[in-house]
């Protein structure tokens, strides 16, 4: 039956044996509705870590592959979300979905983050803006099952038919004015053994929580300083720990001349040589910094000790796949574009951090983790413990942007705790987080288009990138779809590229190919993976095509976009942003479109490239052109929380501005020169547009698309297009200031860490 939003869809839910009512649903139901519950993964398995036998044992558990909502005796509901909250509001959105289906106030839904659950196999990975898309249906099923069980229990007590009862605000209402709170029914409604229960979903036409603006549920804790991040946790005897790292990427310790001396420094309790450097543990992180800098280490070589930006670019050039001019008729012209995107850091404000307590026969880990199952398996292997002996807690993180797809800190903390035989609270220094942390890979992107006066006949794109490390494992959807791709030995990167990159315009023959160069850098995808670079190159070339074909950039896009839904967001920003208004010299508008994650969006910006703005004096920062206005329209299908969605688009706009205008890492001799936020120029207040409008389009679908990364690509492209129009020169290097003289004095590589300043009181205001 086609769901038009008015019918109640029937399904079979689960009740789990527990002291109070616990209702559950298969987490796989969203991805494979036709094969719900099928838990055997189709993707390559790291059999040495986790074999089929392990899987079958876990699959036989009653909770296998299920997510469960508990009803508490105080009429609240609890749910352990098998995803990581990294600031993008998925906890709040999930609470809204549960509240909607259960008829409960959002504030009465308690969301925690689930520990690593290996029985979920590939279904506990946070990434690809997939969280709400993947959990929306299973969470609704579990909540609707709980509601049905509560209704059935009350109806039995009242000796009435369940169909005569309704629910509202945490209460079951009977046909003769009876009322029973969920809390009063929670124990009686509990199942004594795991069983199934037919239930129905609320029709989307009856929604009154989903689609309404909701503030974050953790907002009060945040503004009062109570929100707990991993470094705020009090694990007994887990003392501050830091690592002295090499002056090059992946350099190893040959010897330490003064280990005993450092161990005797004030506050220091332990010093240990580990695979990534020399770890120190002490009473305060400040004393750890002193100890790191006091260590006299002889280092062996790293993996890329000689490569600088220019060398990497030369390697990429060698690996580029040729563009092919198709054979086309007379009157057809071609246009080429060639763009370079330099390395960028995905470091969040909270640096890599983890607490580890490794004992002889067990281990416990706390860390912000988007791939906790892979982390658990890898740590177990490294420690020589069974998977069931390693408990991995997922902690809400201070941002991610791709960084926490990896569990570098958790693995390192486990190794250090084992070496020292004590619990450790490991935190990376900011300078290390830029230099030794992961970087979005440098890439070139080449475009060739053929066209005549009226049409574009071909649009070819070749993305050549330093390889992106995707070893954090697979999300279930990605692995399933990758297996369905045409023959050929597609690598994981190519699968991701194929599954995410599109040309959203009717341009005849379109091809997009990826080639990668595997160098020894620490890479990882940053928010929105390939799309910001690929789409920026595309949208710049679209402006060039429009220019050559004598068309307005907005009208040109409007003509060639593939769908009415796409044109609707484009039209919206053009109208709200007053596209085509007269602009002063040195300023311009730019417009761009993007589609991904089952959504469409468009961005219009205005940029000021006049000398007075570009040369504004700001101490220890870059100014450059300023985006003065941004208008963004977004259609994600079904918006769950418009306020949260707006926030994600605002963040995406700030990322887009940074990636076009200011933000990059400069590699010299295998390591980035950047070591602080005054070197790595992410958007600061002086770069922020004073006028930002985000328009959330009305629902166009029965199900939500992705949101977390969705704002970046269109914003980056719109800023680039505006810059080209304001200056009359299309930028081909990103960010545009990357090849300018370095705007800062690099923090030295030796000693490894910069000392904290001492002039804080003089700078008080």
């Amino acid at each position, binding site marked *: 039956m086609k769901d038009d939003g008015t019918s109640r869809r029937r399904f079979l839910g689960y009740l789990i044996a527990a002291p109070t009512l616990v209702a559950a649903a298969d987490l796989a139901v969203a991805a494979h509705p036709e094969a719900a519950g099928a838990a055997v993964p189709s993707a390559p398995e790291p059999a040495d870590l986790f074999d089929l036998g392990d899987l079958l044992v876990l699959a036989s558990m009653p909770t296998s592959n299920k997510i469960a909502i508990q009803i508490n005796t105080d009429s609240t509901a609890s749910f352990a979300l098998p995803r990581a909250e990294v600031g993008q509001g998925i906890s709040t959105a999930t609470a809204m979905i549960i509240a909607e289906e259960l008829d409960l106030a959002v504030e009465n839904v308690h969301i925690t983050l689930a520990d690593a659950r290996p029985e979920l196999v590939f279904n506990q990975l946070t990434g690809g803006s997939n969280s709400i898309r993947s959990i929306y249906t299973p969470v609704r099923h579990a909540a609707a099952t709980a509601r049905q069980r509560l209704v059935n229990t009350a109806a039995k007590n009242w000796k009435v038919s369940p169909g005569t009862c309704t629910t509202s605000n945490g209460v079951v209402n009977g046909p003769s004015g009876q009322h029973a709170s969920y809390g009063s029914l929670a124990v009686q409604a509990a199942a004594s053994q795991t069983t199934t229960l037919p239930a129905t979903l609320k029709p989307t036409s009856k929604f009154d929580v989903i689609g309404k603006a909701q503030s974050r549920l953790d907002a009060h804790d945040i503004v009062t*300083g109570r929100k707990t*991040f991993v470094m705020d946790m009090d694990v007994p005897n887990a003392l501050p720990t830091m690592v002295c790292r090499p002056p090059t990427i992946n350099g190893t310790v040959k010897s330490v001349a003064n280990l005993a001396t450092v161990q005797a420094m004030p506050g220091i309790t332990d010093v240990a040589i580990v695979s990534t450097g020399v770890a120190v543990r002490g009473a305060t992180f400040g*004393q750890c910094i002193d100890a790191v800098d006091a260590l006299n280490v002889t280092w062996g070589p790293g993996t890329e000790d000689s490569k600088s930006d220019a060398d990497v670019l030369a390697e990429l050039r060698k690996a580029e796949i040729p563009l092919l001019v198709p054979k086309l008729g007379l009157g057809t012209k071609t246009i080429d574009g060639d763009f370079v995107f330099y390395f960028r850091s995905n470091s969040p404000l909270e640096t890599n951090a983890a607490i580890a307590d490794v004992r002889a026969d067990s281990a416990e880990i706390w860390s912000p983790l988007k791939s906790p199952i892979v982390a658990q398996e890898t740590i177990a292997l490294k420690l020589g413990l069974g998977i069931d002996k390693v408990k991995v807690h997922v902690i809400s993180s201070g941002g*991610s942007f791709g960084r926490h797809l990896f569990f570098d800190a958790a693995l390192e903390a486990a190794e250090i705790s084992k070496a020292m035989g004590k619990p450790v609270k490991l935190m990376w220094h900011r300078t290390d987080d830029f230099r030794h942390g992961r970087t979005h890979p440098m890439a070139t992107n080449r475009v060739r288009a053929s066209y005549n006066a009226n049409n574009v006949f071909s649009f070819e794109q070749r993305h050549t990138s330093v390889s992106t490390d995707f070893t954090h494992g697979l999300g279930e959807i990605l692995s399933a779809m990758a297996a369905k791709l045409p023959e050929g030995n597609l690598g994981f990167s190519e699968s991701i590229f194929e599954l995410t990159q599109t040309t959203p315009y009717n341009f005849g023959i379109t091809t997009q190919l990826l080639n990668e160069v595997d160098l020894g850098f620490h890479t990882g995808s940053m928010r929105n993976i390939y799309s910001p670079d690929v789409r920026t190159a595309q949208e710049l070339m679209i402006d060039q095509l429009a220019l050559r074909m004598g068309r307005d950039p907005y009208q040109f896009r409007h003509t060639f976009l593939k769908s009415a839904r796409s044109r609707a967001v484009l039209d919206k920003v053009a109208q709200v942003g007053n596209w085509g208004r007269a602009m002063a010299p040195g300023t311009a508008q730019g417009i761009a479109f993007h589609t991904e994650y089952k959504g469409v969006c468009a961005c219009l910006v205005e940029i000021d490239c006049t000398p007075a703005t570009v040369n504004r004096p700001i101490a220890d920062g870059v100014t450059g052109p300023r985006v003065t206005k941004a208008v963004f329209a977004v259609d994600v299908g079904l918006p769950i929380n418009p306020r949260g969605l707006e926030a994600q688009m605002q*963040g995406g706009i700030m990322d887009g501005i940074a990636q076009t205008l200011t933000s990059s890492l400069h590699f010299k001799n295998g390591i980035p020169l950047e070591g602080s*936020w005054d070197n790595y120029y992410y958007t600061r*207040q002086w770069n922020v547009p004073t006028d930002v409008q985000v328009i959330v389009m009305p629902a166009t679908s029965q199900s939500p698309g992705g949101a977390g990364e969705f704002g970046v690509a269109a914003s980056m492209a719109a800023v680039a297009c505006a810059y080209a129009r304001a200056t009359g020169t299309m930028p081909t290097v990103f960010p545009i200031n990357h090849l300018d003289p370095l705007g800062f004095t690099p923090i030295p590589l030796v000693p490894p860490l910069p000392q904290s300043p001492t002039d804080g009181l003089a700078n008080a*205001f």
Partner: protein
Amino acid sequence: MPQHTFIVNGEQVSVDVPDDVRLLWVLRDLLGIHGPKYGCGLEVCRACTSHINGKAFNPCAVPVGDVAPTDEITTIEGLAATVGADLHPMQQAWLDLDVAQCGYCQPGQIMTAVAKVRQIHAEGREITDADLDEIRNICRCGTYVRIREAIKTAAAQM
């Protein structure tokens, strides 16, 4: 080891720690006050911004030996008490505009914002976009737009 005495959020505290350890670590690692966050330890990101005698400062850049017994340190945890309410108007504006995303930088953002508005009001004028442009606190989630709105909103209540 030297003993240091000062006032944090209205209470006198004493710690035994060498003079040169920065106040941020004394607050976080020894006193268990976790509102001020570590984002760089270089007086750059401003995530640890707190107040000393009512002025914004970065405890990552102050050796504990520089803090006098009479100095009053206020962290985000003690901000509301300075106005004798459950929330400071700046915190309330942060809630009303749903500013935070991950929340890591926000204690520092709020403490900076309060000092900035006080500074501007002391000059007898209203806060402008140029004043907001001077705020150096990093927000890697990019909540800057709502931060600007919240500061303007709260400034009217302060």
